[in-house]
């Protein structure tokens, strides 16, 4: 597979390490009253879509960027790739 790195262009997927569903960016609020349930959902449950799937890839043998790649899990077609940092920042969350 080839991953269209937003900064480096098409790169072989072999350079990357796969983590999983991009929802892992959305770490729950640990202070919320239902934090434990929210974390259980976050850590263990997956939509596991057949179709367009937003997922995290780490360019481990490249520039060490985490990417959010949207890929069809049925055809393996890659629809888009973004820097995960940009995606995370766009959530406009303040962690402090």
């Amino acid at each position, binding site marked *: 597979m080839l991953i269209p790195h937003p900064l480096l262009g098409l790169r072989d997927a072999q350079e990357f390490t796969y983590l999983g569903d991009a929802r892992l960016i959305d770490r729950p609020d640990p202070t919320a009253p239902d934090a434990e349930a929210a974390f259980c959902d976050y850590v263990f449950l997956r939509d596991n879509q057949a179709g367009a799937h937003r997922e995290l890839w780490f360019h481990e043998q*490249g520039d060490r960027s985490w990417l959010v790649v949207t890929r069809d899990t049925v055809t393996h077609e890659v629809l888009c790739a973004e820097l995960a940092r940009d995606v995370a920042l766009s959530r406009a969350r303040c962690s402090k």
Partner: protein
Amino acid sequence: MTDLRPITALGTVTPGYASFGALDLRENAGLALASLALRRGTLEPTPFGLTLPEPGRWVAWQGVAALCTGPDQWMIEAEGRAELDFSAELKQVAPGCSVTEQTDGWVAIEIVSRAGTGLEALLSKLVNIDLANFGPGGATRTGLEHMSCFVIRRGDVHAAVLGARSSAGSLWHALETAAKRLEEKVA
């Protein structure tokens, strides 16, 4: 100065050198390295007069050079300054940036084709890079025989591979084997 004597990444006093047909492999033990990262709110510096390159690129200017290693990150090279505290120098000229000493983290192997050919044939056996888009000034990090390396196209007939210092011997072996096989093919 210390009275301790350093050894090269390949474990000897003199840097490694080998020649196969038109290709020379040379360990560049004098290369000083430091990484530079922008901190939040800092402006991109121009250390030693270098305009820091875009992703995938390498620039050189008067004995120093820089390659982009990631978003807001660069590796700065300084030829022949491994024995100096180069990261301290870099800190001076890159105020407000995070600088990390890297000189001893790497082995740098310079590959030069004396006849002007064979360099791309060699690289095509080692790294999955589209060489048509990797002319002089190209630089990238990729896998090479299970090692993570920077590959820099310093010129038409000159490339460098930077690999982890600890696996310098394995990297040398990989380059040497590939170069040797090219030589045999020509012969």
